[in-house]
């Protein structure tokens, strides 16, 4: 009896929450980086680079199309940060990846394999969230730097606007984290996460920002836009109205709200994954 117990292998202790999340992160980041979805993301982030390259080439050739406008490079860069990255790329990538964190596993019927491991279910979501963040940050931010290097030297100096670049990189990272957390919750909780996400970013956020009063405080964009060091463009009627009613909370208030939103929604998402029973399609 004593001999049997001496030879049997002791059962290793289950990893803690953080260790589990790190293991899932390690597993997921490779899958995310080498997936078809990354091609979609690469196409999206390549477009601003192509446009920057085109504008720079036209400027070097002295084409009239660029001479007509007196916009200096830093202003064009600010415009591109607003229109491409802040209003489009960050929310769309947040929706796309955030809603897929759990929904993909459910669709592929592979969530069972993750849930049968001796780790907390919430840690699965947290690990995947960090993998999403790592994946998007390492694809989006280099694109911003390339656009910066191409555009800013046009009637501007790289050194003069370097601080703005750093601020832009930080705020884009924060944006990806906050939108990702919000849509991770939407993806974990609802059956039609994509539609809800798209209505939120292109319907609710756009409309709420165009109204005076407190409505805009119920958006992520309100706090995120307060961090932007560039002037808000009025490239459309909606943009013009939004710039009229624009009011910016202070930096600490914005950061506190963004951190609060991120942590709240991430914990909500983890708690939903912990409790919810996912029924796989037969």
């Amino acid at each position, binding site marked *: 009896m004593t001999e049997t117990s001496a030879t049997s292998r002791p059962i290793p202790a289950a990893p803690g929450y953080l260790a589990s999340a790190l293991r899932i992160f390690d597993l997921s980041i490779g899958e995310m980086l080498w997936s078809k979805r990354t091609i979609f993301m690469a196409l999206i982030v390549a477009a601003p680079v192509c*446009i920057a390259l085109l504008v720079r080439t036209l400027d070097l050739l002295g084409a009239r199309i660029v001479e007509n406008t007196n916009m200096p490079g830093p202003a064009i860069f600010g415009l591109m940060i607003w229109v491409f990255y802040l209003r489009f790329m960050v929310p769309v990538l947040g929706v796309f990846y955030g809603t897929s964190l759990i929904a993909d596993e459910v669709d592929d019927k592979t969530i069972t394999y993750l849930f049968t491991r001796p780790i907390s279910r919430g840690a699965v979501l947290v690990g995947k969230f960090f993998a999403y963040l790592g994946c998007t940050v390492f694809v989006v931010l280099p694109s911003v730097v390339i656009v910066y290097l191409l555009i800013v030297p046009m009637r501007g100096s790289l050194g003069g606007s370097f601080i703005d670049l750093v601020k832009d990189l930080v705020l884009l990272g924060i944006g990806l984290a906050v939108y990702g957390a919000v849509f991770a919750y939407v993806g974990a909780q609802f059956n039609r996460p994509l539609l809800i996400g798209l209505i939120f970013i292109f319907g609710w956020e756009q409309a709420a920002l165009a109204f005076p009063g407190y409505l805009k405080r119920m958006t992520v964009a309100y706090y995120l836009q307060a961090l932007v060091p560039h002037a808000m463009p009025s490239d459309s009627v909606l943009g013009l109205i939004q710039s009229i009613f624009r009011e910016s909370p202070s930096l600490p208030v914005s950061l506190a709200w963004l951190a609060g939103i991120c942590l709240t929604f991430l914990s909500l998402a983890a708690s939903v994954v912990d409790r919810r029973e996912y029924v796989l399609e037969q």
Partner: protein
Amino acid sequence: MPIHDQSYRHYAGGRAAPGQAWAVIAWAGIRNMIRKRIFLGLLLFAWFPFVVRAVQMYIAANYPQASMLAPTAQTFRQYLEQQDFFVFVITIYVGAGLIANDRRANALQIYLSKPLMRAEYILGKLAVLFAFLLLVTAIPALLLLLLQVMFAGNVTFVRNNLFLFPAITASTLLQVLLVSFTMLALSSLSKSARYVGILYAGITFFSTAVFGVMYAITGSSTFSWISIGSNLTQVVDVIFRAKPRYDTPWSVSLLVIVGLVVVSISVLERRVRGVEVVT
């Protein structure tokens, strides 16, 4: 229980004439969507602007003090523009999974093993999206025109704006045709409806963002042909006899729209196949 007759049993049902099977697919798709309560709520919500416009017309027709609310030809143009958001949402809700879900379930092979042509399959799927999109664009707009006559008690407005009926019909058909073909082509490219939805939203908003940046940099709207939505706006403006809002010639915008439909048809032709022949 013994089996007495082991011979082949002939098909005793009716045989539909070729070219009619699309209606079965369309009707099944429509019924499937109508069963969803959330979708019905969305359709009701999409009719809310119609109610607001109807009230506006009623007040303008019955209270002379509110003459500033009287409808013009542009009221109908604005109404259709307001419906763009609902068109976007319904397109994603209904259209994203139309072919993608069949591809995911390997149902395409089953469909095409029946006496059903590929064109009929595509037409059936297209009809589902077409029906719901017309339900929130053309039908309420034409009903508004009818309501205006009924509230005013005369046909003066319609007689003075006789072009409105063909304008509403042509512009909504153009919009629905473009949106349906684009979405169906995207749906045939993937097995995931979510991926299709985000792809459609990405193309729509990203093309607009690119145009926005080019507009801000160059100070000219010549690049409006880049944006899918702007092309549609430009052509519909011309159809409604309004001043086009961009510098791009409307014929270029129309060409882009036609080009997109042709590309979509070509994608559908390549992707909707029963068996993949590997050479």
